[in-house]
């Protein structure tokens, strides 16, 4: 409908050119009489796009995972086989990569949770009101900076002779160099704001009066936190973990930039699309993070976390 409107002369309905106007009026009247037709005109293009482009692509991905590649021609052959799936699940190489990816995602999630809780609490409940908005913006802004640039920035920080070495030298620490630790550090950095924001929103929703009541009844701050605040915060924290966990699971650019030789599920997918040219196998590997994320969402759906996204 928006498209059709743009074809009309702009502004209020001044009559310019009687014939097209009359046609448009007829069409407009037709649409006015039939809400179903109106809905169809609105919905066809976007729903068609989503189904034809995205849903079809996901379905095709699932199907392709059961195909194979002709070793001579390099073409995808449409013979059905479960070989790819079996390899991904049973080959020790891919089991190790799956476990490593899971470990990285869990480590990133835990680190971000530990960093996010105090800062979110400070912004929501301790900082003076006029600082609150400013601090939220300060956390939000870099979140929007390019993901690639952030990974690149950490490549600089961790570089030999870079900032981290310089900072660590006086206390006898050195840069971990490029590898698994670097991946965990960088991913924690990149996804941290995604953990801070839902937890901040969670703290913000806890009424101050509740905390005061708890204090008046004699609870020490730590007791109030444990017995009053934490239970109310669980959905927000889980919402944050959904971000950090699933975003880390699918990552491959960070692993490429600061990971050295570290392989994650995403790296295997990318290698099989590009150099190895084995799309069916890449498709099979990509089903692993999808399955893990679906499983995680299934577990946490009862906590109400999904409404906090």
């Amino acid at each position, binding site marked *: 409908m928006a498209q059709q409107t743009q074809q009309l002369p702009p502004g209020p309905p001044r009559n310019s050119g009687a014939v097209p106007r009359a046609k448009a*009026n007829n069409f407009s009247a037709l649409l*006015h009489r039939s809400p179903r037709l109106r809905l169809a005109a609105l919905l066809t293009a976007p729903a068609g796009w989503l189904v034809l482009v995205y849903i079809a692509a996901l379905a095709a991905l699932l199907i392709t995972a059961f195909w194979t590649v002709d070793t001579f021609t390099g073409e995808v052959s449409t013979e059905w086989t479960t070989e790819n799936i079996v390899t991904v699940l049973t080959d020790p190489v891919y089991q190790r990569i799956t476990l490593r990816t899971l470990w990285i995602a869990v480590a990133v999630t835990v680190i971000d949770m530990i960093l996010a809780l105090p800062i979110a609490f400070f912004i929501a409940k301790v900082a003076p009101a006029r600082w609150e908005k400013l601090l939220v913006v300060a956390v939000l802004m870099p979140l929007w900076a390019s*993901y690639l640039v952030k990974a690149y920035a950490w490549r600089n920080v961790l570089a030999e002779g870079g900032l981290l070495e310089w900072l660590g030298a006086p206390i006898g620490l050195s840069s971990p160099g490029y590898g698994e630790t670097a991946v965990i550090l960088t991913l924690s950095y990149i996804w941290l704001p995604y953990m801070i924001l839902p937890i901040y929103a969670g703290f913000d929703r806890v009424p101050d009066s509740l905390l005061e009541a708890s204090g008046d009844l004699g609870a020490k701050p730590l007791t109030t936190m444990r017995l009053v605040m934490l239970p109310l915060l669980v959905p927000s924290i889980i919402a944050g973990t959904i971000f950090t966990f699933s975003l880390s699971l699918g990552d491959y650019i960070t692993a490429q930039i600061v990971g050295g030789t570290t392989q994650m599920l995403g790296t295997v997918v990318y290698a099989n699309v590009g150099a190895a040219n084995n799309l069916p196998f890449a498709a099979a590997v990509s089903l692993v993070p999808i399955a893990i994320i679906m499983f995680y969402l299934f577990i946490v759906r009862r906590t109400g976390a999904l409404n906090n996204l």
Partner: protein
Amino acid sequence: MRLSRGAKVVLGVITALVLLFIYIPLMLVVVNSFNADRTFGWPPKGFTLEWWAKAFDSPGVREAVLSSLWVAVVSTLISLVLGTLLAISLQRYKFFGRDVINLLVILPIALPGVVTGIALNNMFTTILGVPLSLWTVVIAHATFCMVTVFNNAIARLRRTSAGLEEASADLGAGVFTTFGLVTFPQLRSALLAGGLLAFALSFDEIIVTTFTIGAGETTLPIWILQNLFRPNQAPVVNVVAVVLIVVSIVPIWLAQRLSGDSVGVSGARVKADGH
């Protein structure tokens, strides 16, 4: 709950440290783009504008900027049209299958970028046999950019009443006149904000792009990725990275001022994953 002064100070210090942790790496890229030392060790050894001049003179960079702009503009336009249509149909009509479509819309942002990327790559190359190009990137970007426009538009529609549109129709305005004079003016700033977000998303998207771009084509993020591991290109990479930071943050800042709706987490989610 009364926190002691000490506890407040400790929390404040932690917050300050985390903010430093958030900003220092980005500032380092900015500083390095002026760092005269080619190895970019810390501390910097001198100030130079040479890398900026070099970046402006580089034909590769200029071409990549143009491709990125083209992709971002076209996908933003497509997603504006589709996102608006979708928001109006889901907000103003009740119909069978509405919940399903509601779920479909968030899928492109609920699954990691690598899944979206390989799904579309597989669709184009294996199933349809379409050669990858900048157009395939546009199709991919429009699919997740649509979600930001949709989110902004539907949030606005929820706050405006369908009664105004009914009144307009009762007073004899045609369907298109009502859209042009009643619905669109209410949506305008939300669409502008959604469009800016979509633009910023598309401009620095890397993950889905690597899976859907044709051989020989480069967008700005692809250019960075290709030159990242070449030591003699490092100075120019720093400059391009700074440009990316600015181009992605400014539209977001504008969008936030315009919409009044929070473009926070759900928008960010799109950013991260569509990415």
